[in-house]
């Protein structure tokens, strides 16, 4: 990463880019998502996050589909650090005891040089809602993907 002082600060998007990095015109390739939390594998959050990320980027025409081989693509690598689908009963009783949550550490790197150019942490949590939150374990993955895509697109001038 570039100098800490030179890291761009995006208050809302929480994506930090190395000094001088410009994402305009870049396309993004999504690497297979990794995890250190076995629950993320069991609940298929790993595959779903990659799929949702690709879908979100494709909608914004920012996905590197490989057919055009755009120069200077950016690779997005995600690691699910924490995942829990929680449980409905716990969410019904009270907040965090049944919370569904996901924490994703996201790194952006240059396709060719592998140089790290950006980082962010996406966190999504559903801690209430009772029966209405029955799909929370899946919803948080979609929401996390949306947050990542939004953070990246916020750094691209439209």
């Amino acid at each position, binding site marked *: 990463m570039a100098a800490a002082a030179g890291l761009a600060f995006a208050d809302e998007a*929480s994506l930090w880019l190395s000094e001088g990095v410009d994402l305009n015109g870049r396309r993004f390739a999504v690497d297979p998502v990794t995890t250190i939390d076995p629950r993320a594998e069991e609940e298929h959050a790993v595959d779903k996050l990659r799929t949702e990320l690709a879908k979100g980027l494709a909608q914004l025409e920012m996905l590197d589909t490989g057919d055009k081989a755009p120069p200077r693509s950016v690779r997005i690598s995600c690691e699910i650090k924490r995942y829990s689908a929680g449980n409905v009963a716990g969410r019904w009783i009270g907040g965090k005891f049944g919370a569904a949550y996901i*924490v994703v550490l996201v790194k952006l790197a240059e396709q060719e040089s592998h140089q790290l150019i950006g980082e962010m942490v996406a*966190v999504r949590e559903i*801690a209430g809602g009772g029966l209405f939150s029955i799909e929370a374990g899946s919803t948080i993955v979609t929401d996390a993907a949306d947050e990542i895509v939004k953070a990246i697109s916020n750094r691209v001038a439209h």
Partner: protein
Amino acid sequence: MQSRLTVPVLVLSFTLLGGCTPLVQVNDLVPRSVVRIPSKSSMRLAVAAAEGGESSESMTVVVANVNGPEYTEALRQTLGTAGLFSELTTEDHADAVLRTRILSQRNAPRSAVYTLLVHYELRDRETSAILWQDTIYSDAVGSDFYSGEVDIINRKFFVRVRAKTVQDNLSQLVATLTEQAPHLKTRSR
């Protein structure tokens, strides 16, 4: 009517804000597991004030937040305990300066998860050349700390979660620098 309400509103506001005073103490943030390292760098190190730490979650202010000043002091104490460098000194007398930016800290009150992403950078004080840099991630989940008290808005509980996250981050920093420090060389050394 408006002026009659002003005083009670102000009193109530100050009472609420007083109750929201951050409870985190620097001592809570310093990892207990750090021990003095036998091999160390001959460099004199200055620790610059940590930047960042403003949470993107506005509600975080309700409970203890970890900001630059607390982080800087915890960092100084941790490095002092580890003894990785010959001396911790001021920037004027240092060979290298450690700069820190808290890139991200995420959570909300009653949240299950707290995350911390910190960028560390060691620069030659004379040349400003980057000698070493890394971004270190740490997190904690509230349920790891749940000890039976039915108090989901217990502020001390959240302070423990935050403190653990900072301690983990600083422990990782020391572990990384333990490998790196003996090989670091500034222009003057």
